[in-house]
């Protein structure tokens, strides 16, 4: 086994070890954080199905509204023609 191999194994052990240690700490820190907030600053909950990425610029009118508007236009036009 050459030097590169042993280095790669060392890196794997150190790396995976550290990734797990870090994320386990983060799990605990997060749980503690949530408990503290639940106890000292309980809040009205946010709806949990918030979409992951909602770029707001292009958003203009939601599909439902658009549909309704189109119906309204159609109706308006048909009336107007009469």
């Amino acid at each position, binding site marked *: *086994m*050459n030097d*590169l*191999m042993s*280095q*790669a*194994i060392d*890196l*794997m052990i*150190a*790396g*995976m070890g*550290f*990734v*797990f*240690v*870090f*994320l*386990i*700490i*983060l*799990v605990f*820190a*997060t*749980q503690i*954080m*949530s408990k503290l*907030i*639940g106890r000292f*600053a*309980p*809040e*009205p*909950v*946010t*709806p*949990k*199905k*918030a*979409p*992951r*990425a909602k*770029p*707001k*610029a292009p958003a203009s009118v939601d599909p439902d509204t658009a549909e309704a508007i189109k119906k309204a236009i159609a109706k308006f036009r048909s009336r107007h023609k009469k």
Partner: protein
Amino acid sequence: MDKLLTLWTGSGLFNMTAGQAVMIAVGLLLLYLAIRKGFEPLLLVPIGFGGILANIPEAGLALSAAENAIHFAKPEVLAALAGILDVSYQAGQAVTPEVVEVFKHAYKEASTGEVSTAIAAAQDFGYTNGMMYNFYQVVIGSTVGPLVIFMGVGAMTDFGPLLANPKTMLLGAAAQFGIFGTVLGAALLDWTGILDFTMLEAAAIGIIGGADGPTSIYVASVLAPQLLGAIAVSAYAYMAMVPMIQPPIMRALTTPEERKIKMSQLRPVSKLEKIVFPIVVLIAVALFLPDAAPLLGMFCFGNLMRECGVVERLSDTSQNALINIVTIFLGLSVGSKLMADKFLDAQTLGILALGIIAFGIGTACGVLMAKLMNKFTKEPINPLIGSAGVSAVPMAARVSNKVGLEANPHNFLLMHAMGPNVAGVIGSAVAAGVMIKLLG
């Protein structure tokens, strides 16, 4: 006539090398995959186009002024560069291809100070830095491009599902085996003599397993910039292929019963928890892994802007105008590394082969970790959400959901898979920090 001859001898048709022709074909292939097959088009359209631009003969768009001067090899210019780059060349000496090679090699080995002096000297002779060389230096050389993209990704990420069930963070940890397993794979290829890699190169290749574009580009630019093109292409291509790569592995490692496991509904998460979480991550980084601070710092900053609710203008801009602008130039900059002499190499094939292995290992370890956790926790965990730990947000979470629906059409795993999915982003950034710390 003389002038028409100049135009002809300076044309691409007259000068094109086989390598450049192949690379232009590669660029066209990437455009085809991006546009027709929908492979991560936001990045692969600029990368593919940039790859074509970088390989236009004689244009030297991806070369510095000094490299362009060496390419055109006028004796008086080479004489001026010889002193700066410490090459033994005298003004009158014949310019053979060997001489040019010596200059190219000396330029590659030159110090930061020598490079900038050589560029200034070449500029005095009328050569200029290629457009894409400038893009690369500003966007990737400075590391600012991947970091700004990561900030935007942070501003687009909802940690709600992860906060509702923080234990799933461990799935995002396990999937990072893909990274380090691939480093081992690269070392193995080197040991068996199939390919040559240095430790830095092996590590940079491994990061493909992180399944995260900006992280891959950041790490590759720090550890092995010469492989950046192949690594970024590999990372984005396999991310696009996640719906093909993952399902067979997921099915092979799970029983139909496991795939049918219903998970309990996620608890609601308060706004304050979402605001505080990026700060908790930041402090953990500050305490335990400062080398991950640029990546995770910008990521958490983006997420805090998103969640804090008082800077919506900034959050919107970082998710739209800013990330789009940077994406355009980041893609072109990555494309500038798709030059024939750097890309057409057996190493690239190795990188492509190792990349898919990386995704496979990551997927498998995520699933296995979920099965392991299932033995120790009260609340049931569907092992299919483990594969989402590789990140490739949100594709991998959708794959978990889809495979779950095949087993049980009423079992929606999407939200449960989003937890490990975003944890995978953090996990890869931590792994990146470890590699930069130990090797950088």
